[in-house]
């Protein structure tokens, strides 16, 4: 049975085992490889995408649940918050190994869309599900604050 939804504004029709996690549809089928595999159990956040505008762990999102949904991945994330976040990420040189950073950028963007002026505590809460094994966390906080300031300006 086909599931029809949009990915980055394009309509896709996926004929797959409905249990298939969205992550593997994005990577194996659509070759949108910016979304990463880290744990498979929603513990690390490397696979974070936006689903109908909300951040979602694609590794535990069955494709069969996505009829009519809108999925946005790191390859196409756009808008003032995303641009501010990505600009701050580059300016502050947040990434080290970089593997988790797609997920970090997605979560940070989702945060600023709902909470334009987060406190450090709110940042920690919103980003608590995204592991960075290089521990770039201090720069992630700084970059989110800078993106927030630039959005306000």
């Amino acid at each position: 049975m086909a599931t029809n939804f949009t990915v980055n504004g394009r309509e896709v029709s996926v004929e797959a085992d409905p249990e298939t996690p969205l992550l593997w549809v994005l990577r194996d089928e659509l070759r949108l490889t910016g979304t990463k595999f880290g744990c498979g159990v929603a513990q690390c956040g490397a696979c974070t995408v936006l689903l109908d505008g909300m951040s979602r762990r694609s590794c535990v999102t069955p494709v069969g649940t996505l009829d009519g949904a809108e999925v946005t991945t790191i390859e196409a994330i756009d808008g003032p918050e995303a641009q501010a976040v990505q600009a701050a990420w580059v300016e502050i040189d947040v990434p080290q190994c970089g593997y988790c950073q797609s997920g970090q950028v997605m979560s940070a963007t989702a945060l600023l869309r709902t909470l334009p002026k987060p406190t450090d505590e709110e940042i920690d809460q919103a980003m608590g599900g995204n592991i960075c094994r290089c521990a770039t966390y201090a720069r992630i906080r700084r970059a989110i604050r800078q993106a927030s300031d630039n959005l306000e300006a």
Partner: protein
Amino acid sequence: MTAMILSRRGFLAGSGGFVLAMTLPLRGRAQQAAGPLAPNAFVRVAGDDTVTVIVKHLEMGQGANTGLPVLVAEEMDAEWSQMRADSAPADPAYKNLVFGVQGTGGSLGLANSYTQMRQAGAAARAMLVAAAAARWGVSPQEITVAKGVVSHEGSGRSATFGELAGDAAGQPVPVDMPLKDPAAFTLVGREGLHRTDGRAKSDGSAQFTLDVYREGMEVVAMVHPPQFGATVARVDDTAAMAVPGVRAVRQVPSGIAVYARDTFAALKGRSAVAAEWDTSQAETRSSDEMEAAWLEAARNPASPKVVEERGDVDRALAGAAQVVEAEYVFPYLAHAAMEPEDGVIERRGDRAEVWMGSQFQGADHPTIAGILGLAPENVRLNTMFAGGSFGRRATQAADTAQELAHVARAAGGDGAWKLMWTRENDIRGGRYRPLTVHNLRAGIDAEGNLTAWDNVVANQSIMMGTPFEDMAVRDGIDPTSFEGSNELPYDIPAGRLRWQRMESAVPILWWRSVGHTHTAYAVETFLDQVLGAAGKDPVEGRLALIRDARPRDRAVLERVAEMAGWSGPGTGDRRLGVAMARSFGSFVAQIAEVEERGGLPHVTRVWCAVDCGVAVTPDVIRAQMEGGIGMGIGTALHSEITLGENGIVRQSNYDGFRVPRIADMPRVEVSILDSTADPTGVGEPGLPPAAPAMANAWRSLTGTLPRRLPFAAATS
């Protein structure tokens, strides 16, 4: 599982961005660097003015793809914005000058490249200058280079690198070029140079091994034995083969490989494999049993090696006014890098191509060629960005390369395969930081002077019984087991360090800062306690003990005390703790500010002073200190691997094996000491002092000091 994108053609046709994302993984990254001027294995100057540095070290986050290009750009007098980086494939030209083979480790990346990369840049510059001189009919001595532009003042002529690259390629390649006086550096040490990989790692376009897709590629998931040292006795693949998309199940030396059309099918097939195991050679002890054995061995070592001895320690202890004793237990730790172990291999006839975040190409490449029976020159290994490593991607026996090659060999014939470990394979996969016990005794005289220091370390050897034994082990002593407990900066009249080697089938490995992961904690928290028992201030007490021959240790301690405005640990709800460690040639001292949160220390701030010689890329140095601090603190708070009944690892994913998260991360201030000494490591040295600095502050706050890590286990 059948997954098919019905509108794929239209999907791909719609957006240039997607097409780019589709095509990049199909190419080896190192093949992209080309240019008319290629004076050596390291530098390519293209007609579009870009200068690409072929980086011989794995970029795993530590900044190799930034630091090495800075050195080349410095001697070329290039503009930073024209510099690019590409990871070198496996090739003897790219060997680590300390290891003698290609590989990254020991925080040696910049240190062993410092002269080599500068010479590579100087040669390229000389060829560009010679080409300009010939073109303009002037003397090369009259030509200057600045910010990527070659100029002749007398005639008013100038040209960019790209305009000269074609001509320069025809010039003889100079050797032994004189290098700049460090006082004349303009890029080395400059602030504001961004990482070469920052943008690609912020927009999802950076290519890791997992992102490589080849035509007709199968995905391979692994079932590994449930205990270390166990082997496959019997496999029932009936249920696995019934999973739609599973193509084959094969036994390989490391376990059972499930080959499938795509990742989800491989994972489902993996779960469906039924196997029986031969556990006759397996480690079946629990880690509690092992810990008890290690503790006993450190108390009464049966066959200790004396690493260091000066003065008569036993006599000094017997005559001491006060003797302080402590035992420490450090658990096994997984590296748990974000990208699990993986590799892609494509075999066509007598050739193969491999994509890996290889940290040890010098071992991985010949291993793969050997297992496949191919001539090494017919195997190309492309080095990909690695999604973290912390040591895990360089193993003594090239484990992952072996498994990848065996997967291809067991499949037989031509094809392409992506080997992908699950997080469970990784957390339960061994190659841990060794379980380690320290037994410490110190003597204090009636005046409060430290008179004796006696340390026994018990753990497995990382190097013995491996190909590294000849290089690393002397007189049966493996320095990676206790490094940091020897050659203390402190002047103590009588001192002794003994090492008791322990044995287990649990495979172990270097883990970011190796021996210093435990020695800094044991030495620096014990010393803090001893200074306290003698009524001395942690900073003043250390400064009084540091030998004259260790001025760089003293300097970082003085600097960090100044940064934090140290006047003792404090008295309120927030306390300060200090610790220092020399590792990988660099000197680091840190002060942590700690409060209590939920029964555990919460580190609010860390001040860090580092002396790593010439600071080539200051912001990368700061980033490595920050990361080392976060990892050091968070690991000491949360992380441990334990073996339960029958030696089965209890943890399997990030829920059980807890790692630092953003709430654990303090504010960090880093100060880099001015130095003209050759650069030394920064990837590892930021980590060792962080946990003991936190623990010392915690002891000031609560009067307790966890001696069995992690903190969370001690308090739960």
